[in-house]
């Protein structure tokens, strides 16, 4: 494959943000492939956009709301827990996020 000439992405920092663990080989491959893609994406810089509003959605809907009442479509506790073995007293078991220090 093509070898990208400029380095854009710090794959170690980005993998940490993305919560992905990559092997050394994956880092190397990803570096080449993503720099290649980012180099291509850079072509957007040639388009003048200073007065252009960004488009996040295309059908023009605004503030779609509903009555603040309970809906039928709600999983029971057992249904919500059915996808995992890691549960305790009807709750999901998660890794500790905050140190006690």
């Amino acid at each position: 494959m093509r070898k990208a000439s400029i380095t854009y992405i710090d794959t170690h920092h980005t993998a940490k943000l993305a919560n992905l663990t990559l092997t050394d080989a994956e880092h190397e491959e990803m570096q080449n492939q993503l720099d290649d893609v980012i180099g291509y994406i850079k072509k957007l810089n040639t388009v003048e956009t200073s007065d252009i509003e960004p488009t996040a959605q295309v059908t023009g809907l605004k503030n779609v709301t509903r009555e603040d009442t309970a809906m039928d479509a709600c999983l029971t506790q057992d249904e919500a827990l059915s996808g995992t073995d890691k549960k305790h007293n009807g709750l999901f078991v998660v890794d500790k996020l905050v140190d006690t220090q």
Partner: protein
Amino acid sequence: MDTSKLTITDIINGYKENKFSVSDIVSSYLDRIEKLNSTLNAYITIDKENALKKAKELDGQEVKGSLHGVPFGIKDMFLTKGVKTTAASNVLRDYIPEYSATAVTRIEEAGGISLGKLNHDAWAHGSSGENSDFGNTLNPWNKDYVPGGSSSGSGTAVAAGLGAFATGTDTGGSIRLPASFTNTVGLKPTYGLVSRYGVIAMASSLDTIGHFTRTVQDSAKILSVTAGPDGMDSTLRQSSEKVNYESLIGKDIKGLKIGVPMEYVAEGLSNDVKETFEKSLEVLEGLGAKIVEVSLPHTEEGIAVYYVLMSSEVSSNLARYDGIRYGSDRSHFGKEAKRRIMLGTYTLSSGYYDAYYKKAMQVRTLLKEDFDKAFEKVDVLVSPVSPTQPWKFGEKISDPLAMYLSDALTVTVNLAGIPGLSVPAGFSANNLPIGIQFMGPHFSEELLFQVGHAFESETKHYERTLNL
């Protein structure tokens, strides 16, 4: 019974005339799956028991729903209550949902009978089907060639008679591309027409829910079932009016203005695609349509805009897969998902957001305005679906950028949010299918079906026999 020749209309008429029972039909499809799926690998999960049970329940009953007893396949991105749903990824290899997607529920309420869950590129990431963690789906027209992606199993299943129709998702071409590679009809509806409730999210500002059929009329029939708000997807157009999408089918296209975007056909097309497309324009002219050249000046930037926005939204949507509530942990993601998560995390990260995500959203505005201007001059647009006919397995898999560029003619429709209908248009010199797509303004599906049906009635490519 040769199921590869049956349309939904044939099946419904057969029931009405007592030619066969629902069990006869469902068994015929299941037999064909049994015979061919080990080679073609279209289905990940075959739901034989349920299908036969439901068929038996409908036997002898009066035909009520518009899809009464019609067997179909479901792309494995759609949740199905009690039936394994994998997203074709090892992350969800054993996941069994507690509820079904709205599109599936509506099809089943109209009488459709699911035969099982169809293979695709994992998380719908890909243009060839080769990114599935459950192996490649083969193209039934030539097993050395890709069936197109991401809805690879859906295209192959409908082409090979392993289902009368199949559901699909289209974020950048994932329905239209495999439809054009398998000689089937693929509809990508307007953004906000069909509910995405219960369908695994890929890129939320682009995702649409559509389907594969053998004919345009069948496609319209299904959209009449799946379209409209369900109270569960707030991006849907809020109209309670029930539309009959078959209403313009059979109407001629005399005097209709059909635009050809110059930028789509100027360069980069293979000779076979170019020739097929030019012949298709002659057919449309012969039917009385007026062919007009139009310009969509920002086409060149389409892929760059798409890969920034799509990857950014993918990185956000796939952040939820942490192995806590369901599925396995993040080490189980395949290569392509990791690539897109990394790219999207980068383009959204501090210091880069304005340069990439915001910039891409601004160019998206210009792309959309291109289409708005074109539709002031013409009723619909037509172009090839893919710059080339199907390619061989392995050809592009180690070069992601080359793979991404094969979506150049499809992603713009998703960015503008307009509908696109892929219709069979012919075959290459080596007998591989080539499709064209009709594109219209937002919510103009009835018009696309009218044009597509007129073209199909004249060319009848769907009648071509597939030797398997």
